[in-house]
């Protein structure tokens, strides 16, 4: 499911099955030196979020990404997001990011190494994303099975 009007209606009718929120965390880099790397990383994380949504359509809602610039307090952002979701029907939140500064901050952060997809053919892209999703399935299933 996506965070759209139509999907939300279905989500609200099925909260016992759809219990996981995916929120991509995207760092925005705008200097001459870092922009290309940052954009490529964002592209990968967003593609991965879409691929995960496709795999787990009936259990997750993929939210619009959260973008931030450097210098914002990640601890505070995390507290804000978590307290917002604490009041929601979601049982699990999964923050998907390639930004290593989030790593180890919290158990709900899903850090993944990013792969530059820019110069790949669409077919290759699909294949890579499919493999990555397959590797993430056990990690996500483990999260679902652990009480939180």
């Amino acid at each position, binding site marked *: 499911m996506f965070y759209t009007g139509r999907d939300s209606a279905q989500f609200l009718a*099925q909260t016992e*099955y*759809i219990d996981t929120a995916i929120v991509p965390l995207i760092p925005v880099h705008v200097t001459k030196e870092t922009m290309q790397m940052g954009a490529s990383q964002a592209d990968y994380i967003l593609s991965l979020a879409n691929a995960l949504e*496709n*795999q*787990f*359509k*009936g*259990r997750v809602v993929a939210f619009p990404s959260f973008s931030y610039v450097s210098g914002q307090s990640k601890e505070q952002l995390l507290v804000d997001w978590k307290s917002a979701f604490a009041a929601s029907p979601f049982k699990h939140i999964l923050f998907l990011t390639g930004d290593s500064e989030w790593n180890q901050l919290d158990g709900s952060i899903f850090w993944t190494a990013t792969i530059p997809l820019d110069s790949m053919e*669409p*077919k290759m892209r*699909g294949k890579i994303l499919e493999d990555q999703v*397959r590797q993430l*399935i056990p990690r*996500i*299933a483990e999260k679902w099975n652990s009480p939180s």
Partner: protein
Amino acid sequence: MSNNKVTRRQFLSYTLTGVGGFMAAGMLMPMVRFAIDPVLQKKDGGDFVTTDVAVADITEEPTRVDFTFEQVDAWYTSEVTNTAWVYKSGDSIVALSPICKHLGCTVNWAGDAEYPDQFFCPCHEGRYEKNGKNVPGTPPLGPLDVFEVRESADGLLEIGMAVPNNLV
């Protein structure tokens, strides 16, 4: 010179008729083309999509086959990639849709180590037998859809529309 000399008057009228004829034809041709256009439209071959998998290579083990087709939404055309689980059953080829009948996740063959010969949906642990029949007691309420299949002239697998499961 010969007797049938072309007079200046005749020459001018021939030239004018010729040029006028070309202009009239230039205007009429596109109009005629537009008028009979529906007849000339190319028919799509029954919406079958050719994959890059040879029918001879398909085994009894379900394998993932991706196929891409162009989807037209109003005037926006996009490429859509779909997946099917394809295997051989006796002499016929079966292509199952990977969309779980519960809430639309993607099912995987042998996705659960405890059930190596079933399709498994990781979202809510739904299971399907090899022919797509849903395992009672798991969340899905119906069998997986099947795709229409056929073999192309050069031996490649072609996948068509998804239809309700007729194997169960």
